[in-house]
């Protein structure tokens, strides 16, 4: 079966002597990568390391252990001892990550990049009012209102964003409310069940199949126990446990069971050696809290945008301050102008728009099974350039499935899709009949009862992963397996164990004419072959000669090379004369033959890729996103899966592949020839950051196998050094540091551990890699659309600012007032700019490269200049024409308006002459000024419609993008006319016949 390089985990656990020896050469380099990421917390980390070093309980004998922990393996701890220890060491639970207090979360929403801008605007407004008030107590309250509105916008948007995030946090919280775990413990010589939280070091616990191991335990006695360490190490295969010390590394030795892993089968007794945060998993989880949160790309973009706006605002403000002073305005007045200009530049509505837009997209993504924890993370996926994906569960289905069969000297491919529906291999051969019988009978796995209506592939099975796979496989092909087993009554059985490496059972056959017993056996192929002297080909027994043995080995190697777990099957009909019906089989003495059997076939299993993944990977490829597989699994398996999902494309080779093909040494291969690379944690450990950078840049297809959590972190950092936006997927606790470090951490909703979900920014509710692709699409779209929204919003800024500037310099009556501006910014403009979030993509956004973090800005120079100086200016000019038209038609021609400001605003001047010699009172002028506001407002509004339409696209013509078909606008026009005419008639009759019946009923 697959061999494992066991040294890998010793990287982190270097305390033992042997490893120190092997690592002597580069002992100093060992933690290089780790030092990089934990530089500021070096001391703390060292401490952690020392703790890991201390874990040598696996080497101690039971007596020594008893002494060390002051316990007894028969009687357990006394309850007083236990209470003492519990008080001293605290409960056996992981300290949850420090919850940010809700109020801090809330306040955080109020001080983001944009909000700061608005706050400053609001404060400036109040300062301006203060200045005005000190000069003239009856000054207008506009500035106060403006300030309040700005503050209100920030607060409301903050509440909205907070609510949005709280909602997704709540969804998360409901995922798996864990039932308090119980542990079977021996205390005071009595077996008792206590909550796992109350376990203390030295407790003797018993576990059995299905239990979660309640703490780090040293196993004392074991009966066929297998554990699932995938959440810790990423190995998808069950790991057998025993009570013997087998390896120096505590992670590799078989006599340690780890907290939070699951015992799949068998029973075991163990002594608790570490509890709570001191467990291995606790230490890894605490690594995550040490990793700082990176700023999201969109936050950076918004900050950049704020800088631009602030820059523009302050420079225009100061410029006009100087102009105002040189125009002999009072300095205090000029300061008010300065503040006014700065505030006028603040896009009041944009904060709300961006927040709403992001949450709309988040909602849309949630529908596609991407739950976004942090609103800003919505866009991050779009700018992702590297995805570091976990293998198990994300790319694969996380269950063993029969992939290949070999019989009759032929390899057959089984269907590995999610529902197994399409088994097309040739089932007519007699060999298959025998093989299927062995598969069915030599299997201890059973369906849990009461699942008749559940599809076969989804049924819950009691048994280990491979047996489950075989059971489901045979159930799909043969139908009711349990019925077949019933008909072929089992008379004896030897379960699988690691010394025999085979499993055997003896059955009565269902053929009433055949009194022979059938002996069926499965196990490690080479062991099975040893026991065989014949082989079945096309249903006929043939002697096992050299050629067939050769064929067997080729097939075995081939299947093994695919990273699959291979099992061999053989059988023997026991001769009826030697083994009559009444014969008693004794499995201990083995009073039956276990050699000279008949070899039937091989069957290989793999955790197959999800069917949607290859397509998703291709899409990522075409979207310029590099997909890197990072797994704790074996390199061969990892590579096989990578190949089958397209992470390593069909025609690319690794250095090793080339070496193999050309029959030369690996060192002789030109590294440039290889596009793909499979790097093990072992090799990664020896790499300098520069080498890692080189690896990441030179190879487009990379698989990291046998990696540890810390190494995952190093890989993420390496990617980030390439200026890439890195997405990391993961489910285990071991992934949480990397999830946190990544620009966007994606946790699995179903398989994911709480630690992973906490550390992640986004959760895939269906654990499906393909959902990431839709997320990327949405993210890119939202980036584009935000660009459009901002362009749309910025445009009218100039049209709102120009009036004020002209007012200062030329002395016209104010063309548009503060309140009117607010009405545009927070009223009429909000809905169109939100609507832009729904704009469909202009081109295939999944066919272009991800945006460059530093070069493709959300708001770039072109956008600002085009919005401000081109469209914005046109808009301002247009609105001014409207304004002048109103004034000119009312009597004030533009020429007379110049420098009219002081007299215009003097409420004591009540006979101001216009161009026609008419004289206006102050209030009449004011009224006219309001008309001017309205004209200007309408002017902006009308042009904003055009602006909205042009902002739909950036490159395509609007006609390519498509508008609502114009003809549909006119469908209802006749009815509009009808309404009008009808009402005119109504009014006519009311006027004609006052007091009539019509008048009474129709006049309102």
């Amino acid at each position, binding site marked *: 079966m697959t061999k494992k390089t066991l040294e890998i985990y010793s990287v982190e656990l270097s305390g033992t002597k042997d490893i120190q020896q092997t690592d002597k050469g580069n002992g100093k380099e060992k933690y290089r990568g780790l030092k990089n990421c934990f530089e500021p917390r070096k001391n703390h980390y060292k401490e952690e390391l020392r703790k890991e070093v201390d874990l040598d309980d696996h080497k101690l004998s039971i007596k020594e252990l008893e002494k060390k922990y002051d316990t007894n393996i028969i009687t357990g701890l006394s309850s007083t001892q236990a209470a003492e220890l519990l008080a001293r060491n605290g409960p056996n639970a992981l300290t949850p990550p420090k919850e940010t207090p809700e109020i801090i979360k809330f306040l955080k929403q109020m001080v983001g990049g944009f909000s700061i801008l608005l706050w400053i605007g609001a404060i400036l407004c109040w300062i301006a009012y203060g200045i005005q008030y000190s000069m003239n107590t009856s000054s207008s309250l506009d500035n106060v209102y403006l300030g309040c509105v700005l503050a209100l916008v920030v607060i409301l948007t903050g509440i909205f964003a907070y609510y949005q995030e709280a909602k997704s946090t709540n969804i998360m919280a409901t995922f798996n409310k864990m039932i308090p775990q119980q542990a079977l413990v021996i205390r005071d010589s009595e077996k008792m069940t206590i909550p796992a939280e109350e376990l203390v070091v030295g407790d003797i616990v018993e576990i059995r199949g299905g239990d979660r191991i309640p703490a780090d335990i040293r196993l004392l006695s074991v009966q066929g126990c297998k554990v699932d360490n995938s959440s810790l190490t990423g190995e998808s295969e069950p790991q057998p446990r025993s009570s013997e010390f087998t390896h120096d590394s505590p992670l590799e030795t078989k006599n340690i069971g780890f907290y939070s892993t699951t015992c799949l089968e068998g029973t075991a007794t163990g002594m608790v050696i570490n509890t709570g945060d001191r467990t291995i998993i606790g230490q890894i989880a605490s690594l995550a809290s040490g990793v700082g949160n990176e700023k999201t790309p969109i936050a950076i973009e918004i900050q950049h945008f704020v800088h631009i706006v602030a820059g523009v605002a302050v420079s225009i403000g100061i410029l006009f301050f100087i102009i105002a002073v040189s125009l002999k305005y009072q300095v205090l007045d000029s300061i008010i102008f300065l503040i006014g200009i700065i505030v006028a530049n603040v896009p009041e509505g944009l904060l709300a728009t961006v927040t709403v837009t992001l949450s709309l997209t988040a909602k849309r993504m949630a529908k596609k099974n991407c739950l976004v924890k942090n609103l800003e993370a919505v866009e991050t996926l779009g700018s992702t350039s590297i995805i570091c994906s976990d293998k198990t569960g994300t790319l694969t289905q996380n269950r063993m499935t029969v992939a290949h069969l070999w019989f009759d000297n032929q390899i057959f491919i089984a269907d590995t899709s999610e529902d197994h529906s399409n088994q097309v291999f040739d089932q007519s051969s007699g060999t298959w009949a025998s093989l299927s019988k062995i598969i069915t009978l030599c299997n201890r796995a059973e369906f849990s009862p009461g699942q008749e209506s559940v599809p076969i592939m989804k049924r819950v099975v009691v048994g280990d992963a491979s047996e489950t796979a075989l059971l489901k496989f045979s159930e799909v092909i043969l139908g009711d397996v349990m019925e077949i087993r019933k008909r072929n009554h089992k008379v004896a059985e030897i379960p699988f164990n690691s010394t025999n490496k085979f499993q055997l059972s003896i059955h009565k056959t269902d053929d009433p004419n055949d009194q022979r017993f059938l002996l069926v056996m499965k196990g490690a192929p080479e062991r099975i072959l040893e026991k065989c002297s014949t082989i079945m080909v096309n249903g006929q027994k043939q002697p096992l000669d050299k050629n067939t043995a050769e064929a067997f080995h080729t097939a075995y190697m081939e299947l093994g090379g695919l990273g699959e777990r291979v099992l061999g099957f053989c059988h023997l009909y026991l001769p009826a004369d030697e083994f009559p019906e009444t014969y008693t089989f004794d499995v201990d003495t083995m009073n039956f033959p276990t050699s000279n059997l008949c070899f039937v076939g091989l069957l290989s299993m793999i955790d197959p890729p999800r069917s949607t993944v290859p397509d998703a990977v291709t899409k990522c490829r075409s979207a310029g996103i590099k997909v890197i597989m990072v797994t704790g699994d074996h390199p061969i398996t990892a590579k096989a899966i990578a190949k089958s999902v397209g992470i390593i494309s069909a025609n690319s080779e690794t250095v090793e592949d080339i070496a193999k093909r050309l029959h030369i040494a690996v060192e002789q291969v030109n590294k440039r020839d290889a596009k793909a690379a499979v790097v093990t944690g072992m090799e990664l450990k020896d790499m300098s950051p520069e080498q890692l950078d080189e690896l990441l840049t030179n190879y487009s297809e990379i698989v990291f196998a046998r990696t540890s959590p810390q190494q995952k972190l190093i890989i993420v950092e390496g990617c980030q050094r390439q200026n890439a936006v890195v997405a990391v997927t993961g489910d285990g606790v071991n992934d949480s540091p990397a999830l946190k470090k990544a620009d966007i951490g994606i946790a699995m909703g179903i398989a994911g551990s709480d630690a992973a979900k906490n550390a992640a920014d986004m959760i895939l509710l269906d654990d499906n890699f393909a959902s990431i692709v839709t997320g990327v699409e949405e993210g890119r779209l939202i980036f584009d659309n935000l660009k459009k929204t901002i362009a749309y919003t910025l445009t009218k800024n100039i049209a709102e600012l120009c009036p004020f500037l002209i007012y200062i310099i030329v002395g016209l009556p104010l063309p548009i007032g503060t309140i009117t501006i607010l009405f545009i910014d927070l009223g009429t403009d909000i809905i169109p700019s939100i609507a832009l979030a729904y704009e469909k993509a202009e081109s295939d956004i999944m066919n272009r490269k991800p945006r460059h973090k530093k*070069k493709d800005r959300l708001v*770039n*120079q*072109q956008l600002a200049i085009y919005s401000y*100086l*081109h469209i914005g*200016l*046109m808009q301002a*000019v247009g609105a*001014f*024409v409207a304004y*002048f*038209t109103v004034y*000119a*038609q*009312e*009597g004030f*021609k*533009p020429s007379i308006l110049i420098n009219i400001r002081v007299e215009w605003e*003097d409420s*004591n001047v*009540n*006979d101001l*002459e*216009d*161009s*026609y*010699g*008419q*004289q*206006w*009172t*102050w*209030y*009449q002028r004011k*009224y*006219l000024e309001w*008309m001017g506001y309205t004209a200007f407002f309408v002017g902006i509004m009308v042009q904003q419609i055009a602006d909205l339409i042009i902002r739909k696209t950036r490159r395509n013509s609007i006609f390519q993008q498509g508008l609502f078909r114009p003809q549909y606008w006119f469908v209802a026009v006749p009815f509009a006319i009808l309404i009008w005419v009808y009402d005119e008639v109504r009014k006519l009759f009311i006027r004609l016949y006052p007091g009539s019946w019509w008048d009474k009923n129709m006049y309102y």
Partner: protein
Amino acid sequence: MRRQLRSRRAPASPYGYRSRLDDQDEVNQNYLADEEEEAEEEARVTVVPDLEEEEEEEEEEEEEEEEEEEEEAKAEEKGQGQPAGNAWWQRWQIVNEYLWDPEKRMSLARTGLILVIYFFFYASLAAVVTLCMYTLFLTISPYMPTFTERVKPPGVMIRPFAHSLNFNFNVSEPDTWQHYVISLNGFLQGYNDSLQEEMNVDCPPGQYFIQDGDEEEDKKACQFKRSFLKNCSGLEDPTFGYSTGQPCILLKMNRIVGFRPELGDPVKVSCKVQRGDENDIRSINYYPESASFDLRYYPYYGKLTHVNYTSPLVAMHFTDVVKNQAVPVQCQLKGKGIINDVINDRFVGRVIFTLNIET
């Protein structure tokens, strides 16, 4: 975009035309002309996207290469070029360097071109605006405003006016009221009898002074002589009563083009204490005695044609007002079609001021 630029520029590389320059002069000339056009076009293309700036760092190396190439080309050119070709070549070089300075990439030409583009853009914008404004003025009559509903009903204003409607003065201290007198005198200069007789016509009272005819014809104005104001004309009492604590205040109605008071019933002025004891003002004399604006002063034809129009006045002579206390006075216009109770506008059809005469 970037790639496009590169490929466009490719044929224009120095090597490209060097080899061709070795040919005949005529060919050269034609060719160079083409090249100039192309270079201009090239520069224009580079202006529009600013990708350059962002990619500048990356391209520095390339630029250096280009530069070297160009220098090589120049060096070779000096040796090989024919005399006539040289002249052209130098001119070409100047133009080239102006349009495309490979060292900085931000060449003078580029800045220049940006300016030119913006100049044209804004020039056309200005042209559009001018066109709009021109059409606007075409639709607006210079004699008659398009709408007058905002300025109607007429407002009222008083003289003397010194940025305040509070008349505070001490009878015995001329300094406190002298500016009122000066203001009134100045205001009434235009009403001097001699001037009025010279410029304006004496038209029949009690009826509108309607002057039909073309809009653009100059209109005649009715005389309003200073002497109509009698005691408040400043002719007999040059201090307008301020020296005796009996101040004259002139009231005029705001001019509105085309405004006509209701026929037969001229607009009257009446003043009373606005708030407080009615008897604070015991008597007011109005001049002209009718206390009204005669119909002959209406309508007003606008300042372009009705040049010498003098607004009719009503003088209020507060002959007996309580002294040493502020008396709020409200003077209202009365007449058909006159509104004097707009809440927001305290100057439509009425005027409120306070008299505080100290002795």
